[in-house]
């Protein structure tokens, strides 16, 4: 295992390698320039909104102004009469079997929700879709949507999960049955209402564990909903040909996932749908389809013309799939020497009108050996949009609860929080928890840390195991000796680049001599969606196998040509050479040409991967903060992150993931929160009021990569996109506690909350 420190702030050093003379055998571990960088810096990359088709119309939605209401009537006649309007759809215009939308996500079960509420049915959050209109211009479509008249019977809303579980609270999903009362915990003794999902788990015997403990800690943590805030809003263009073929150009993390969602929602065979995955302007878990694409296709079907829908930023906040909020109570029993003996958690996840949150509660246990563990967790309906995945879904929330309390325990027991973690961490094959934590502690100078007035240090770790999914790839070698990778991967984080590096490594050519192309769903082999940190692990295996298959063909051709046996050959620097005889060689270009006339034809390697388990990884992070005692304003003086990446294919891209994820995690603790008023209206549906970090909010980040390879990953790769977001909230809360002596258990730690904490300490 090795640890590599990023050379900050002189990233240029790594880039030196980019322009250098690479030798054919070290394509892995090079910080090469992203394969798509040129089209992105020149403005040529095509995002879904950049597409203009002949005859294209624009779709907009009619939305509910109420958070909770029953639809009494919908009148679309005025809208339909407007010149320029080409299609209006509501629940009434859709056939029964097209009345629902299916959303598939990496971490939630498949969700089926009704496309629009019908007369007598309910809207369950402000901004819920009631109808959609397509017209020849956006202005006409908007005007028409305004002319749709909807009559509502307004119902009382509920926005706080702690209220929603009580008897007598507004019942949001009418078919939901109350859950049985729990024997213990913060909401014991009463049935639990508005339940949309449950998760219960027990290991060992927590009661016995707590009895054996010297000290018991119990705290309740509150985490708000956060929006992924990709800068490119949800966007789709759809067109339906007269023969029934549906073409969809969309901003998606997985065009095959989008295709299957559409096929299931529209009840048409997948073979009749071709999804073109456009360059994606950020997704972070929220772009798996279902939010606009289904509606866009239905409008296009009805209009017999292409239709484009681009969400506005306000629509993003009102009606997309943000991360669920949560209220999590954690009880932990420890020995005086810091050994954790038992842990129990009770959680209410704010899943709005949908479900999908409580499954993540097990992350409260963290990376520790804990003999006795128990959890009872619920998805609770409120009058808010259904939740979706956001980078390591559920982990930042549950990790905040688990890790903030670990820090409080360390503080109370007067044990260093890094030391307390090292004492309790799990160990095992392919796991490098301790090394990863130690690496960041060393980088930050944790052991020698000092602090000035109103300054504090915080530390936390977050665990994650990447998913894996089916992926296919083709690698062909052309007559010029260069290789092409073809597959159905949606690149967000730079994975096309990593795949080119993997193919180059196997074929003994330079990364620069590999091109990558993504097929639409009609042409590409199946590929799993880019979410769950699956890509480099899964497609990496597929591409590696495809490249190896191509290499076998190359060796076979070369053996014939050089009259040598395959075992005596080696491939590097773009040629095949007989070992020990550099004179006897043939270039890949020559072999590419020969292959065309050969018995078996052109060189095409195939590789497929289904699913194999990965090993778990952690991100460990440290922050140094300074508080303004007058305003409560928090300033980051230092931010440090380490991550066990398994094996780094492209160190610059790994750093990019570590930095981007760390910033998202920290900022959830510092500033991000979606807010709803008591009447159920969204309070901050815009970027002015929902704050995400600007370039001024963070200092230069320092990152350290640890490499503890996993057996099943290509070259030892672990999935790394998600874990860096996990520890952030806990890191910040602990740094504030270190500075103020007060543990703030409700995120984000806004100036108001920090100021209140400082004042409470003073009084």
């Amino acid at each position, binding site marked *: 295992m090795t640890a590599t420190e990023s050379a900050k702030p002189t990233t240029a050093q790594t880039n030196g390698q980019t322009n250098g003379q690479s030798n054919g055998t070290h394509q892995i571990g090079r910080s090469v*320039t992203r394969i798509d960088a*040129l089209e992105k*810096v020149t*403005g040529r990359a095509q995002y879904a*909104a950049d597409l203009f088709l002949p005859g294209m119309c624009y779709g907009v939605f009619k939305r509910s102004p109420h958070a909770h209401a029953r639809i009494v009537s919908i009148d679309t006649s005025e809208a339909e009469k407007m010149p320029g309007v080409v299609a209006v759809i509501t629940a009434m215009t859709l056939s029964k079997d097209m009345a629902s939308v299916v959303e598939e996500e990496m971490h939630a079960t498949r969700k089926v929700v009704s496309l629009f509420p019908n007369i007598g049915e309910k809207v369950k959050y402000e901004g819920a879709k009631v109808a959609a209109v397509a017209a020849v211009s956006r202005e006409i479509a908007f005007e028409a949507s305004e002319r749709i008249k909807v009559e509502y019977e307004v119902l009382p809303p509920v926005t706080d999960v702690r209220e929603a579980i009580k008897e007598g609270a507004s019942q949001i999903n009418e078919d939901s049955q109350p859950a049985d009362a729990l024997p213990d915990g913060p909401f014991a003794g009463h049935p639990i209402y508005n339940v949309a999902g449950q998760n219960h788990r027990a290991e060992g015997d927590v009661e016995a564990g707590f009895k054996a403990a010297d000290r018991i800690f119990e705290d309740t943590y509150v985490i708000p909903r956060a929006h992924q805030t990709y800068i490119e809003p949800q966007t789709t263009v759809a067109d339906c040909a007269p023969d029934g073929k549906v073409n969809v150009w969309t901003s998606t993390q997985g065009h095959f996932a989008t295709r299957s969602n559409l096929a299931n929602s529209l009840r048409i065979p997948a073979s009749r749908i071709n999804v073109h995955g456009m360059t994606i302007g*950020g997704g972070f878990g929220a772009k798996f389809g279902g939010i606009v694409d289904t509606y866009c296709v239905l409008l296009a079907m009805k209009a017999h013309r292409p239709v484009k829908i681009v969400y506005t930023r306000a629509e993003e906040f009102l009606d997309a799939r943000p991360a669920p909020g949560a209220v999590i109570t954690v009880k932990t029993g420890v020995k005086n020497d810091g050994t954790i003996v038992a842990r129990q958690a009770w959680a209410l996840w704010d899943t709005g009108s949908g479900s999908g949150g409580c499954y993540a509660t097990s992350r409260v246990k963290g990376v520790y050996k804990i003999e006795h563990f128990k959890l009872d967790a619920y998805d609770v309906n409120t009058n808010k949009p259904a939740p979706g995945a956001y980078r390591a879904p559920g982990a930042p929330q549950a990790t905040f609860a688990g890790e903030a309390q670990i820090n409080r325990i360390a503080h109370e027991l007067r044990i260093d929080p890094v030391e307390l973690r090292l004492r309790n961490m799990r160990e095992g094959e392919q796991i490098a928890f301790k090394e990863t934590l130690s690496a960041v502690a060393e980088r930050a100078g944790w052991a020698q840390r000092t602090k000035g007035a109103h300054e504090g240090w915080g530390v936390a770790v977050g665990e994650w195991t990447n998913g894996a999914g089916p992926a296919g790839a083709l690698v062909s070698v052309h007559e010029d000796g260069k290789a092409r990778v073809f597959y159905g991967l949606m690149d967000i984080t730079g994975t096309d680049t990593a795949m080119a590096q993997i193919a180059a490594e196997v074929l003994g050519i330079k990364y620069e001599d590999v091109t990558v192309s993504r097929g639409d769903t009609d042409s590409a082999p199946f590929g799993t969606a880019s979410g769950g940190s699956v890509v480099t692990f899964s497609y990496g295996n597929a591409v590696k196998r495809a490249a190896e298959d191509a290499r076998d063909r190359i060796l076979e051709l070369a053996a014939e040509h050089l009259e040598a046996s395959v075992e005596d050959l080696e491939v590097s620097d773009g040629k095949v050479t007989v070992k020990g005889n550099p004179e006897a060689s043939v270039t890949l270009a020559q072999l590419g040409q020969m292959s065309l006339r050969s018995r078996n034809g052109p060189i095409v390697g195939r590789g497929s991967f289904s699913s194999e388990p990965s090993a778990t990884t952690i991100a460990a992070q440290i922050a140094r903060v300074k508080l303004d005692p007058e305003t409560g304003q928090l300033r980051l003086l230092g931010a440090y992150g380490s991550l066990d990446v398994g094996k780094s294919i492209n160190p610059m891209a790994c750093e990019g993931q570590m930095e981007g994820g760390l910033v*998202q995690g920290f900022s959830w603790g510092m500033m991000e929160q979606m807010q709803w008023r008591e009447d159920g209206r969204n309070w901050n549906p815009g970027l002015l009021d929902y704050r995400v970090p600007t370039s001024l909010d963070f200092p230069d980040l320092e990152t350290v990569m640890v490499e503890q390879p996993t057996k099943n990953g290509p070259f030892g790769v672990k999935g790394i996109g998600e874990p860096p977001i996990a520890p952030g909230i806990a890191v910040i809360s602990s740094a504030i506690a270190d500075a103020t002596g007060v543990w703030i258990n409700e995120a984000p730690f806004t100036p108001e909350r920090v100021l209140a904490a400082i004042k409470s300490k003073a009084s």
Partner: protein
Amino acid sequence: MRTLIELTVNGQPYPIDVEGRTRLLDALREKCFLTGAKEGCSTGDCGACTVLLDGQPVTSCLVLASSAAGKEITTIEGVSAGEVLHPVQQAFMSAGGLQCGICTPGMILTSIALLNENRNPTRDQIRFGLQGNLCRCTGYGKIVDAVEVAAKDMATRENGHHMEVKTEPDTNPAMAGPAQADATGGQAPGEKGR
């Protein structure tokens, strides 16, 4: 009420018809088919729609198209000269200053304006100058790196060590074809912003 106006974008004239309320962003994207400027919010908060107006960065979602007539407009499509990239573009590529790329055109244009004002900015000055451009992917560090690298590169060139920056050595032409005349508008890129 529709009126005919002429926009000068990247040195080329674009006669287009607009309504009084047509935003510069829509005129560029939907009339000139220059889609490099992106729409992230429409309220002036994200900076994805940034273009240069007489060399100054503006959020084109808040500018009326008619008010931009008679001014020099530079979009990302006009930043490189043929296959020769602007040093800022080059630096965003080599320093890893982009991931999803949706903020990149705005970031690059703002950075160019920043470097035109201050050839040798500190990291804090770069952060200050970029505060109106949101990036959700990178955490900003590598973007600041990129602007620093570009500043050094520009200084080297001005000191007489002029080097042609070719796109060829570290890119994959087939995936990301060389920057060339803008295909949608059919116009050759101008020299603006260099």
